[in-house]
C-alpha cells in the first residue's frame, strides 16, 4: 500500500466529498470530521432516547385504544431511531457504553426541546406535529450526509417520521373538532411549544461554531436559518387552518419574499436550558440514569449467560 502524506489524503477526502461520494467506515478521514460526526450523531441518538420520555409518560393516559396503540408505536420508534443512530456512531470507533456514559453524566448534549415539560395530553399531539415536522426538515437534509452509515440510518428514520407527524396532526385535528376545553388545551400547548420548537433548528449561523465546518464536509447542507424558515412557512398555514394561532403577533407572510416574518426565539434562553437550567433537564437525565442503573444486573446477567452457554 502506498504511504500518502496527510495533505494528499485530505485533498482526496475533500474531492470525494465534493463529488457527492460517501465516506464509509474504514475510509481515511480528518480527525475533525470524525470528531464532528461522533458528536453530531451521538447527540442525535441521545435526543431520540431522551425524547421518549415527554411523550412516553402519557402512554398510561392515552385516550382510547387507537391513541394508546399509536403512541406506544411512536415511542418505540424513538428507541429504534436511537438504536440506529448509536450503531452509526459506533462505526466511527466509539462504544455505545461510552456514549451513554456521556449522556448520563451530563457531558453530552441532546435536543433541547425535550427539556420542556408535557403537562397536557395535547402536548403529545403538538410534539408529533410541530417538533417532528421541524425534525424531519432537518433530517431530510441529514439523509444526504457524506457519511454512509449516517445517511443510511437517516433514510430509515425519515420514512418512520412521516407516521409520527401524521399521528400527531391527527390527534390535534381530533381535539380541534372537540369541546371548547379540548381546543383551549391545544392553543395552550402551541403557546408553550412554539419558541422551543423554533430553537430546534439552532441559532442563526453567525452564532454557531459547528455549522461552517459541517457544511464544508456535507454533514449539513442548509443553514439553521434556512431550516427554520422552511419549518415556519410550512407549519403556520397549517396551524391557522385549524383555527389556532402562534404566540407571535409579528408572524406575517411577506408577499414579496413569500416567507413568513417572525420573531427570533430568545437565544439566551436556549443557552441557559442547554446548559442544564431548563424545567426538565434534571428529571429527564434522572429518569434515564435510573433506567440504566436499574437495568445493570440484567445486562450483566445476560452477558454472562452467553459465556456460560458457550463454555
Amino acid at each position: 500500500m502506498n504511504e500518502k502524506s496527510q495533505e494528499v489524503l485530505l485533498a482526496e477526502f475533500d474531492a470525494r466529498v465534493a463529488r457527492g461520494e460517501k465516506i464509509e467506515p474504514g475510509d481515511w478521514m480528518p480527525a475533525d470530521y470524525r470528531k464532528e460526526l461522533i458528536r453530531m450523531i451521538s447527540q442525535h441518538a441521545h435526543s431520540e432516547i431522551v425524547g421518549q420520555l415527554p411523550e412516553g409518560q402519557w402512554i398510561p393516559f392515552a385516550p382510547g385504544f387507537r391513541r394508546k396503540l399509536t403512541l406506544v408505536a411512536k415511542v418505540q420508534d424513538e428507541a429504534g431511531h436511537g438504536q440506529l443512530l448509536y450503531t452509526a456512531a459506533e462505526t466511527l470507533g466509539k462504544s455505545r457504553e461510552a456514549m451513554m456514559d456521556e449522556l448520563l453524566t451530563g457531558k453530552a448534549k441532546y435536543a433541547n426541546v425535550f427539556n420542556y415539560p408535557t403537562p397536557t395530553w395535547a402536548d403529545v399531539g403538538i410534539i408529533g406535529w410541530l417538533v417532528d415536522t421541524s425534525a424531519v426538515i432537518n433530517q431530510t437534509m441529514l439523509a444526504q450526509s457524506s457519511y454512509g452509515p449516517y445517511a443510511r440510518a437517516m433514510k430509515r428514520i425519515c420514512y418512520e417520521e412521516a407516521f409520527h407527524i401524521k399521528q400527531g396532526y391527527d390527534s390535534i385535528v381530533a381535539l380541534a373538532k372537540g369541546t371548547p376545553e379540548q381546543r383551549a388545551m391545544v392553543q395552550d400547548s402551541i403557546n408553550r411549544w412554539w419558541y422551543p420548537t423554533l430553537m430546534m433548528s439552532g441559532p442563526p449561523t453567525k452564532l454557531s461554531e459547528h455549522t461552517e465546518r459541517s457544511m464544508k464536509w456535507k454533514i449539513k447542507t442548509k443553514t439553521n436559518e434556512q431550516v427554520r424558515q422552511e419549518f415556519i412557512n410550512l407549519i403556520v398555514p397549517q396551524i391557522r387552518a385549524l383555527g389556532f394561532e402562534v404566540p407571535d403577533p409579528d408572524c406575517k407572510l411577506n408577499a414579496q419574499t413569500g416567507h413568513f416574518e417572525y420573531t427570533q426565539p430568545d437565544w439566551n434562553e436556549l443557552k441557559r436550558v442547554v446548559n442544564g437550567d431548563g424545567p426538565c433537564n434534571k428529571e429527564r437525565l434522572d429518569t434515564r440514569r435510573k433506567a440504566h442503573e436499574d437495568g445493570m444486573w440484567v445486562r450483566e446477567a445476560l452477558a454472562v449467560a452467553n459465556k456460560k452457554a458457550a463454555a
Partner: protein
Amino acid sequence: MLLEVPTDIPKEALQRLLVALADDELVLGHRDSEWTGHSPILEEDIAFSNIAQDEIGHALLWFTINEQLGGKSPDWMGFERNWKHFTCCHFTAFPKGDFAYTVVRQYLFDVGEQVRLKNLSTSSFPPLKEAAEKIIMEEGYHLMHSQSLVERLGDATEESHKRMQAAIDTAFPQALGMFEELTGEDELVKAGVFSGNEPLKEQWLEIVVPALTSASLELPVEKKNGKFTIDAKAEEGGRKGWQKEHLKQLVEDLQTVYKMSPGGSW
C-alpha cells in the same frame, strides 16, 4: 354488525369469557407499556413495546367480538367502564416491579396464553376460533422472547438468580389466578366453546414446571403419580370482579384523559 350465536351456546357466559380475555390483555399490555423508555437496554425497550402493542391489540380484538355480540364498544369497555367491573385476574394488574418480576410474569402469562389459545383454536364458536388462530402466532413470539429471558436470567449470576427466585415466589401464586373458574363456565364447556380452566391449568403446569426448574428456579409444586400438588394459595377473585386497589389506580390512569370527553373526539 351483530353476530349470530348458535342456540346451544350461552351468550352471556360467552361474553363473560371474551371480556375476561380482553381485560387480561388490556391490563397486562398497559403494565408492559410502562417499560417503554425505561428498559434495561435499548433493544429490550423495542421488544417490550412490541409486546405491549400486541397485547393491547388483542384486547381490542376480543372487545370487538364482544361488541358484535351486543356488548358495548371497546373504547367504552376500556376507558369508561367502572374498575370494579373489570374481570382481569389480579396477576395482570400488579405493578410492574423490577425487570425480574416483569419477565417472570410475562413468561407465566405467555405460556397461559399458548395453552388457552391452542384450546380456543378448536372452539365451536367460529369468531372465537378465528381470533385465537390469529393471535396465537403473535403470542408464540412473545413466549419465545420471555422464555429466552427466563432461561438466561434464572441462573446467570447470583444477583439475577436471587431476583428471579423472588419474582417466582411472588408471581407463581398470582399466576394461578389466571385459571380461576369463570361464572357459567360449565355451559361453555358443554357447548364446546372451550375446555374450561382446570385442564388449561394442568397443561400450563406441564410446561412451566420443568422449564422453570431447569432454569434453577424453585416452585411450590410437586408431581406425584402424574398429578401436580401446589403448596400455594392462588390469587383469585378477579374473574368475579373482586378487584384490588392497584387496579383502581391503573384504571384511573387509563381513563382520566378519555373521561374529559367520554365518547368524544379523540
